[in-house]
């Protein structure tokens, strides 16, 4: 399981899993767009590289998701895949594949307005990495 929804009174939270940090960050990106639309129906029409920095793992996660969310909120682009090319606690580089939103082909399930720092966590539990993120909706 890549992620699951978490209950929150006013907003939307997710818990994401990965066998390593690369997979965790990829699954977080996937989860976010899966909340927005049906990612299975997206095509990878265009590609770009994203470089993100952060003060620590949670900060890196928030900055990563904020940049990805801007693809949608700022440019109307839906991300199908975000592959982590390299990652450390202070920086990551990723290949992002996306296509523009077309109302005749895509269904928007819900709007995510922002990635918050509220209860942000990135931690290791036994062999699995876990992240908790809350979105403003």
């Amino acid at each position, binding site marked *: 399981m890549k992620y699951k929804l978490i209950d929150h009174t006013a907003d939307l939270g997710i818990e994401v899993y990965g066998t390593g940090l690369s997979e965790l960050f990829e699954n977080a990106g996937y989860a976010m767009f899966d909340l927005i639309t049906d990612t299975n129906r997206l095509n990878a029409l265009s590609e770009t590289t994203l470089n993100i920095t952060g003060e620590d793992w949670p900060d890196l996660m928030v900055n990563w998701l*904020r940049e990805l969310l801007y693809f949608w909120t700022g440019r109307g682009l839906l991300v199908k895949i975000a592959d982590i090319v390299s990652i450390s606690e202070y920086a990551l580089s990723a290949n992002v594949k996306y296509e523009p939103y077309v109302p005749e082909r895509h269904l928007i399930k819900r709007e995510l307005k922002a990635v918050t720092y509220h209860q942000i966590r990135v931690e290791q539990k036994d062999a699995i990495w876990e992240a908790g993120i809350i979105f403003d909706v």
Partner: protein
Amino acid sequence: MELIKIDEYRWEVPKTGQMRVPGIIYAGESMIESIKQEEAVKQVANVATLPGIIRASLAMPDIHWGYGFPIGGVAAFDWETGIISPGGVGYDINCGVRLATTLLTEKDVRGKLEELVNAMHRDIPSGVGSTGSIKLTYSEEKKVLKEGSKWAVRHGMGDESDIEHTEDFGCMQNADPDTLSDKALERGLRQLGTLGSGNHFVEIGMVEKIYDPDTARVFGLFEGQATLMLHSGSRGLGYQLCDDFLAHMTKNVKKLGFEIPDRQLACSMIQSDAGIRYFNAMACAANYAWANRQILMHRAREVFQKVIGIGPRNLGMNLVYDVCHNIAKKETHIVDGKKRTVCVHRKGATRAFPPGHESVCEKYRAVGQPILVPGDMGRASYVLAGTEKAMTETFGSTCHGAGRVLSRTAALKKSKGRSIQRELEEKGIHVRWTGRSTLGEEMPEAYKDVSQVVGVVHGAGISRKVAKLRPMAVLKG
């Protein structure tokens, strides 16, 4: 967390640990148990640790869990020595409400509700990423950010009396568009004149009951009157702006010289470059929201005129007032007998200035500032007036609305198998919405009972009930 009962409506969070002041939560006996369970009480205590906070970390009866600051939170900081925090304002800067009256009665509109709400659905862009019919250039956008409501009126979308009856006359003068990132400016280009989604709405209602006839008369309210209420904020521009500043302040939090208990309380000293930049940027978003609500009201005026088939004079749609729910203001308050300049953060809280206050427009000065408290779409909304007690206790603040009680997932689960639309129609309320889950997520049961919330602020004396409104038709984003 431990709460000490002060009286029927006030509960103290005792000053412990790093708290600089105590917390005070306004709530009723029946609400306090569920409030105690909430993370929100911890958040009230967390806010009390921030430098420059004066008197107490406050929360209104619609308190609920937010990020950093609780929703329903009010906190004032010394203008010279205190902090300013984007989390204390909220993502949706100047999310707020406006109420307009008409010369029509409930009887005049009852037969036309379907038509009205359908026309509004058509003419008022709403929902996910909606773009509006107003296309701005960057230079025009900057004018919107500097002028607020005035920009809309200058472009034929309203009149001077609308501006008179808006908090801060629809414009915070310190707005500086140069403080906004390219991303924020870009998001603002295409969303002016749109409603937004989530709990934003346009509502046609009626005045069901008058509690204070003298004040109601001054506000222009009469029983049976058809009204228009709208709830919307600064759209993507405000969100992006909050995001940008939170990211910047969080990055530099270690340089502040004090610990903060929660990342989302990231802040700067007000008297710092970062603090001043945020305040001046926030003002831009506030002005955008006021311009937006002015435009939305204008569109609603046009819809009414078209559907009912009357001209503006016979419709007589007049703005009662427009209030902010998410904002930080520079205000003067008396603290321990002395005048102090403070930065009041209201996140999910409304200004409630008393009779005689110079910031209340002339027409209302004798009775106090109108306060608009929307409930959920199935029950009531209220009009209140500000009081002297609010000035002495809560920095002139009161509640803002019902507050959620069910999470969106829980609300959706509860609404499964039910037709919320039909349930509302059986109560005589017509609903239109955009977005698949909106109605389930926004159903009445997902919210606290606003009558209870209003009962507390009225009982505590920080606001006075003036009138109760009932919804007849709702357009949700």
